[in-house]
């Protein structure tokens, strides 16, 4: 049996026999893996939105420098196109909630210092309250209740309280986390009709216009500028299409893992199949995030 399979078997066995209400050390290990992946997905989503906006501006600037480009193309007053600062900020806040949620779960599963847990809890609450109202799935009362859960742990971290806090936070935040995963996965989906699709349209437009300019270019400088723009668009097409598809897939896996974690936490004695499903998804998510981080 490989180390990975042994770990999975131990987690499943330990979780399935847990009936005290406390999370076993193996159960905490699964939560830690999920939490770390959630934090990483939140981080990647945050940086990716900023990268997409910067690259959109950069591609439109490159198009402006092409010889023979029509006046008004692209619109110099709208170089960021769909990536308006307020829209990007809303997405970054959504990704910030995922990151803060992962950090809080991780702190609860690993930290013995209440200050650290409180800090992570405050960060989640701050990120939640900064979400646009349309994306808030927890009202003020529910958000305050979340803060109370962590405060009630008190100065002494005992396993029962730790377990109870994790269970309650997972249960209470699931509608919010699932909503944000759906929202961000949709944005990154290169086959959807949201931000990623707009980005790909910008890439294709630059590629086509640069090719046209290259065909018509006579002067050496024009040829150099056109070729550089063409290469930038081609690289953008290759790299971003791959990163966007993976980011979207990771967010869908995160949503699935959150649902499975909630199912597993809802039950004092989760079924073996519930736990197996969660462990498998958490592992797939962890691997996907590692690949995504390397591909950036």
């Amino acid at each position, binding site marked *: 049996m490989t180390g990975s399979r042994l770990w999975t078997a131990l987690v499943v066995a330990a979780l399935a026999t847990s009936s005290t209400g406390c999370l076993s050390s193996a159960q905490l290990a699964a939560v830690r893996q999920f939490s770390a992946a959630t934090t990483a997905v939140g981080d990647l989503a945050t940086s990716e939105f900023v990268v997409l906006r910067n690259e959109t501006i950069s591609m439109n600037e490159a198009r402006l420098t092409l010889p023979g480009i029509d006046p008004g193309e692209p619109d110099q007053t709208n170089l960021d*196109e*769909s990536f308006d600062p307020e*829209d990007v900020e809303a997405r970054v806040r959504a990704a910030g909630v995922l990151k803060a949620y992962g950090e809080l779960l991780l702190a609860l599963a690993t930290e013995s210092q209440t200050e650290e847990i409180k800090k992570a809890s405050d960060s989640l609450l701050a990120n939640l309250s900064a979400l646009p109202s349309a994306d808030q799935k927890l009202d003020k009362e529910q958000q305050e209740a979340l803060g109370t859960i962590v405060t009630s742990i008190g100065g002494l971290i005992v396993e029962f309280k730790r377990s109870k806090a994790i269970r309650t936070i997972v249960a209470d935040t699931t509608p919010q986390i699932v909503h944000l995963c759906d929202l961000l996965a949709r944005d990154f*989906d*290169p*086959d*959807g*009709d*949201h*931000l990623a*699709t*707009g980005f*790909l*349209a910008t890439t*294709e*437009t630059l*590629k*086509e216009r640069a*090719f*046209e300019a290259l065909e018509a270019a006579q002067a050496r400088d024009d040829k150099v500028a056109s070729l550089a723009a063409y290469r930038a668009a081609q690289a953008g*097409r290759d790299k971003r299409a791959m990163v966007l598809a993976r980011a979207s897939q990771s967010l869908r896996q995160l949503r699935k893992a959150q649902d499975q974690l909630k199912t597993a936490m809802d039950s004092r004695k989760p079924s073996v199949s519930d736990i197996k499903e969660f462990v498998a998804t958490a592992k797939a998510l962890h691997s996907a995030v590692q690949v995504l981080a390397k591909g950036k």
Partner: protein
Amino acid sequence: MATVGANISKTLPLLTDLIEKTKDKDEKARLRALHKEMAAKLKELVDKNVDKATQEYEKATAALEDANAALRAAREDLAKTAKAIEKVAKAAEWLGKLAKLAA
């Protein structure tokens, strides 16, 4: 279920690739005009609420599927470019109707 987004995200790269392969000047000019039109319509639809339960959505999706198949065929055999142009023009027409409905 096939969606407009899933199809149009393939249409634009296929159009770009065909423009680069096509030698005929008239066909190239027509493809370029369609590329501009499709990119503009796509940007109009980005981040908008599009009702998927409309005839326009269904027709636009089907027209894009036809256009993509025709573009792939033309990429393999440039003699089929005129047919691809016809199909893409039809898809652009339906996308225009859909864009008008988008909130």
